[in-house]
């Protein structure tokens, strides 16, 4: 039974971004991260999920964490979750997976959440507009929708589609079917009985409703949009007002990035028509970079924006569309009817090239998602060392060792993640430039 309460149990991580030692730049961290990623998932089926909530019931640990809150911000844990039974170990997986997922409310720490607009659409019910605090952290339903762990679900039957209904509890039930396949169901228990819940539509499973809410990561994207507008439009004006003069201040800071991306990446890769794609590629770079960096800022909930697969899918799709619509005749010829090879080879190559056409944006999507998500998972796993070593407050010594280790590793990982934030934005744009470059390239005819 999994009944942790991520609304109220939240781990934030700390980072020192002042310096980035050169030795770190050689970190081949992706493999390490994916290993840990796999290890966490691998361990899931063998350990029972357990809450970290009872740990602050221990007064000594409360004191202990006040001290270490300076280094690793840990929020207050509370909830009606069952206590850790003797012999059970703390399993950080649910907390970590909850953290890296999107949510309909912006949880900061403790009981403090920023309410966000919730926009829901069900074909048989129409639009529902509300704020996330109308759900009272899942204590009541709104028009047949129920919030559980910051995420909105829709009740299938038996729950009023109009107005509020008190929800006693939401349970996740897991069972194996005849073929030993694990199924899980979400059940809302309320006055009128039990109702099965379903999650919003994804590309993988379409359900009875769509969630168009300004979710946590959408809110961060909007903030990034505003930050970029406030930053770059005045900088652009400076190029007119200070024409012919050396750049100063923030203009100088971002000119380094713009010039590097333009002269070292976009210009040589895209080719002579680069000016047409420059605004797009620079917007892409800074949008991804700022979203990456927002996920690293401590104490603001560490939103996993660019580690969200829908985010990377959308960007990769846009890159795919740009490549496809700017592709010249040569590009399409090289895909469907490869020049200068015998006809059987042309027929053989065409399907491979068509797959490649889709594999390229697909790799963009997976790369950014996996790298950023893995970074968040590693940092959260390291923070979880405190609770794992401390056996949820049973062992203060263990928690101390865990905290010392966690602080050191988390600082280290945050610095690595800072590098990864830049690196992944860079790689995304390098590859997007490469794909655009191959689409607009003028082939010298053989």
């Amino acid at each position: 039974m999994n009944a942790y309460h991520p609304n109220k149990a939240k781990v934030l991580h700390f980072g020192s971004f002042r310096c980035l030692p050169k030795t770190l730049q050689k970190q081949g961290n992706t493999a390490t991260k994916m290993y840990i990623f796999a290890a966490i998932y691998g361990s899931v089926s063998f350990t029972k999920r357990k809450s970290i909530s009872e740990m602050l019931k221990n007064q000594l640990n409360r004191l202990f964490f006040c001290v270490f809150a300076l280094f690793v911000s840990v929020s207050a844990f509370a909830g009606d979750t069952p206590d850790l039974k003797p012999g059970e170990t703390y399993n950080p997986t649910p907390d970590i997976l909850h953290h890296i997922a999107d949510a309909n409310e912006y949880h900061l720490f403790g009981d403090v959440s920023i309410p966000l607009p919730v926009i829901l659409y069900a074909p048989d019910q129409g639009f529902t507009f509300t704020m996330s605090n109308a759900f009272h952290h899942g204590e009541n339903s709104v028009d047949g929708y129920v919030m559980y762990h910051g995420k909105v679900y829709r009740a299938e039957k038996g729950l009023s589609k109009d107005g509020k209904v008190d929800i006693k509890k939401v349970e996740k039930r897991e069972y194996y079917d005849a073929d030993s396949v694990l199924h899980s169901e979400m059940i809302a228990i309320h006055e009128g009985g039990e109702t099965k819940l379903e999650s919003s539509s994804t590309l993988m499973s379409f359900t009875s409703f769509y969630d168009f809410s300004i979710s946590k990561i959408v809110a961060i994207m909007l903030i990034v949009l505003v930050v970029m507008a406030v930053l770059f439009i005045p900088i652009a004006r400076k190029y007119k007002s200070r024409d012919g003069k050396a750049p100063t201040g923030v203009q100088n800071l971002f000119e380094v990035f713009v010039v590097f991306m333009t002269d070292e990446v976009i210009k040589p890769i895209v080719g002579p028509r680069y000016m047409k794609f420059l605004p797009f590629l620079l917007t892409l770079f800074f949008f991804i970079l700022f979203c990456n960096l927002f996920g690293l800022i401590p104490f603001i909930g560490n939103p996993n924006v660019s580690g969200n697969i829908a985010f990377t899918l959308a960007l990769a799709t846009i890159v795919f569309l740009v490549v496809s619509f700017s592709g010249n005749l040569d590009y399409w010829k090289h895909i469907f009817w490869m020049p200068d090879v015998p006809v059987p080879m042309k027929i053989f190559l065409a399907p491979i090239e068509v797959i490649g056409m889709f594999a390229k944006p697909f790799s963009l999507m997976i790369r950014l998602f996996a790298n950023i998500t893995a970074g968040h998972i590693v940092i959260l796993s390291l923070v979880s060392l405190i609770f794992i070593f401390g056996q949820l407050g049973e062992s203060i010594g263990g928690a101390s060792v865990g905290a010392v280790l966690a602080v050191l590793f988390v600082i280290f990982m945050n610095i690595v993640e800072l590098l990864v934030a830049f690196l992944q934005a860079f790689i995304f744009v390098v590859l997007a430039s490469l794909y655009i470059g191959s689409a607009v390239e003028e082939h010298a005819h053989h």
Partner: protein
Amino acid sequence: MILLDFNIIAPAIGTIFWTSLIFILAYFIIGKLGFKPIAEGLKKRESDIDNSLRAAEKAREEMSQLVAKNEELLAEAREERSAMLKEAKEIKENMIEDAKIQAREEAGRILDAAKEEINNQKMAAITEVKNNAGKMAVSIAEQIMRKDLANGDGQQAFVSKLIDDFKLN
């Protein structure tokens, strides 16, 4: 199954919609109003720097040409000066030489004239002496004639006296 429980690998429709919308907005707002002018400004600055470097190179070339020309002129002037000096020296030497020759000639002429004059004067003097001696001899002889020539001693003294009196004028 656990992965599917969380929306991390299932792309949510709403997030795809919002990401696309926000990115397209970002492109049209920041790409068009921000990065395009920035890129153009940078390109303009690049070409400006390029142009001014080329202009500086051109100016430097012109300058070096000018300097070479100046040097040439200076060398020419120096040469001219030394030529002039040389000429002047030659003229001076020639003049001195000429003057010397002339002076020598003049002096020779003067000397010759002087010699001739002296000769003439000498001849005149000799002639005069001759004349005077003749006159004196005649006059002495006259006076002797007139005086008594008996006394031999007296005669001798008289002649001496006459000779003394007879001033060689």
